[in-house]
């Protein structure tokens, strides 16, 4: 048991799983000698060699496309895409191939790979280093989408993702890469994909979030002084509607918080599903506190864009006053 940051927890999971399973190959830009631009793969190249930790050419479609081949051949590739803004060139390989291979071949070929991707804003990075595209991949059947909000969860979810027989996009919220530490067991533990975590219980309102904004939600709950149940989805697809619905049936009100733009963000799905499953319990419309329907600004304005605690508190108050 050690007190680790999210970066360290992921690094630990990678090391342990690579020791356990020699089918794992890590590939991506700067993941080798340099240990990744966020140092998530630090030490792996030295420990496992250039055979298993591979600095690839600068080409995201190439990284995902070759990883698909590796996976179809029975290996367990863990490609890294350096920033979520550079998933774009890999979109086609992910959605036209990785997501469809099992269906297309009726299971003869499958793509067990875990794509690691730093995600989200708040670190004063340049353009296209601060986006949140989780909804895009949640809309693509055949892919799973995971986003941890704490070091402990990161390790347990990453191990489940790696062992999952289907392609998983593992989004790592870079704003909390090193924001805080948490006890992370040395021993192996798995957090099943598709299970949310109830961060804190409450009676007046249900708050649903994932990734870095879980922290903003906790701040907002603190500030508001209300009895709020906070649910960290952890897995975006498949998502744990049971936990969300049970909570909303209890509280009658919900606020969903995410960084991505509002329109067709994953908050839309959560809101629509809450309506579908908890209609008669709902005392107010589900509130969405999200990024605006605009381009994520360069960093001078990024805090105007991101849903911070105050904006969340206002939505809570309005839902409660409804």
């Amino acid at each position, binding site marked *: 048991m050690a007190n680790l940051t999210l970066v360290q927890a992921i690094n630990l999971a990678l090391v342990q799983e690579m020791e356990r399973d020699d089918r794992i190959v890590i590939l991506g830009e700067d993941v080798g000698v340099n240990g990744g631009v966020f140092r998530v793969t630090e030490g792996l190249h030295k420990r496992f060699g250039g055979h298993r930790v591979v600095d690839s050419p600068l080409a995201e479609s190439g990284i995902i496309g070759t990883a698909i081949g590796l996976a179809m051949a029975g290996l367990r590739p863990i490609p890294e895409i350096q920033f979520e803004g550079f998933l774009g060139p890999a979109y086609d390989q992910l959605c036209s191939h990785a997501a469809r291979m099992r269906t297309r071949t009726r299971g003869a070929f499958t793509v067990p790979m875990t794509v690691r991707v730093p995600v989200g804003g708040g670190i004063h990075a340049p353009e296209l280093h601060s986006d949140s595209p989780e909804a895009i991949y949640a809309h693509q059947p055949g892919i799973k989408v995971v986003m941890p909000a704490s070091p402990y969860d990161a390790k347990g979810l990453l191990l489940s993702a790696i062992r999952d027989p289907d392609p998983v996009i593992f989004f790592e919220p870079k704003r909390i890469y090193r924001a805080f530490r948490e006890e992370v067991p040395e021993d192996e533990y798995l957090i099943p994909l598709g299970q949310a975590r109830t961060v804190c219980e409450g009676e007046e309102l249900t708050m649903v979030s994932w990734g870095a904004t879980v922290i903003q939600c906790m701040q907002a709950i603190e500030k508001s002084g209300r009895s709020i149940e906070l649910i960290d989805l952890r897995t975006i697809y498949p998502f744990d509607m049971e936990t969300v619905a049970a909570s909303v049936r209890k509280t009658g009100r919900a606020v969903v918080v995410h960084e991505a733009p509002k329109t067709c963000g994953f908050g839309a799905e959560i809101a629509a599903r809450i309506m579908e*499953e908890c209609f008669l319990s709902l005392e107010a419309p589900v509130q969405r506190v999200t990024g605006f329907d605009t381009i994520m600004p360069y960093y001078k304005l990024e805090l105007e864009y991101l849903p911070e605690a105050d904006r969340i508190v206002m939505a809570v108050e309005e839902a409660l006053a409804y």
Partner: protein
Amino acid sequence: MPIRTAFKTEIEHVSILDEHGQFDAKLGAGLIPDGDVVRLYEHMSICRHLDEVAFKLQRSGRMGTYPQNMGQEATSLGAAYALDKTDWMVPCYRENCGLFWRGLPMEYVLLHWMGDERGNAIPRELFCMPLAIPIGTQMLHAAGLAWAAKYRGEKQIACTFFGDGATSEGDFHEAMNFAANLDLPVVFLCQNNSWAISVPGKIQCSAPTIAQRGLAYGMHSVQCDGNDVFAMVKVVRDAAKRAREEHRPSFIEAVTYRLGDHTTADDARRYRDQAEVELWKTRDPLIRVRSFLKERKLWNDSKEAELRERAEREVSAAVQRAEGIEAPSSNDVFDHTYATLDPQLLTQRETLRTNSLGQESGRRPSHAQSGGAH
């Protein structure tokens, strides 16, 4: 030396049995045993027949859009012949002849074009990838498959097939570049058939050869007559050796021609001269092998008649198997999305509905506090 030469190279063109039936005895010596030439010819003829039958199936509404392979049989067949049975074949959709040689039952390809995923449920021991619909994307998978073999220290390689049009896609470049720079055992085989639907070759590559695309990666690159099964066997065998022994990829431009329309949805008369088609008919890969065999007394008209019958028998049996398969069930819409279906998918599968009430079997949700006050 303010101006010096930094790089110098040339691209070779290989031909062994040419369109006039001329056979280069030196290059061709011992390349393919006579008995195998007979088998290759028979195989090409059967595939040609399948093409004709598939066309009719489409026209009579028994099959969807189908891309004829006619005229290009020698290219994929020569490759399949030159490869080991456990080398990956990573096709596009005009490689029936090579895939069938490898052992893929014809009904798989028919099923695919009949709109049935079971056509791609290819037994793994055949080492054939499913047909690739999005152009240019499958070469990266070939690079990954080859990489996995190398990673495991196996002698397996991958050979991937694609058209001239496919070489315009970014993924082609990335696959070539990964293979060259990471030393992956891949054979990249471009079937240059002059057209990408209606777009002529010069719009895809205005360089003198497509083969020289490989120079960008320092890759061994060669052009050959793709309608010459001997040349195909030679260049693929050389490339396979390079891959297997040195982990070096190669690029092959096989010059061939699509004698039919792009697919059954296309009408090639809209954009190409019939004279061009007629010229290429004289370069048909089957014609030259038949005269080669006849000259050597390995073939005659009665064998041809027998073959004709065999082709009809085999193809119609395949059609029967494809059409005889039980209809897929609606469960098939769901069951292959993930290894295990999540609760939402299970509900969708059970109810065949997406709307919320359907999900709760038409009943009011039992949990509802009736008449919630708002």
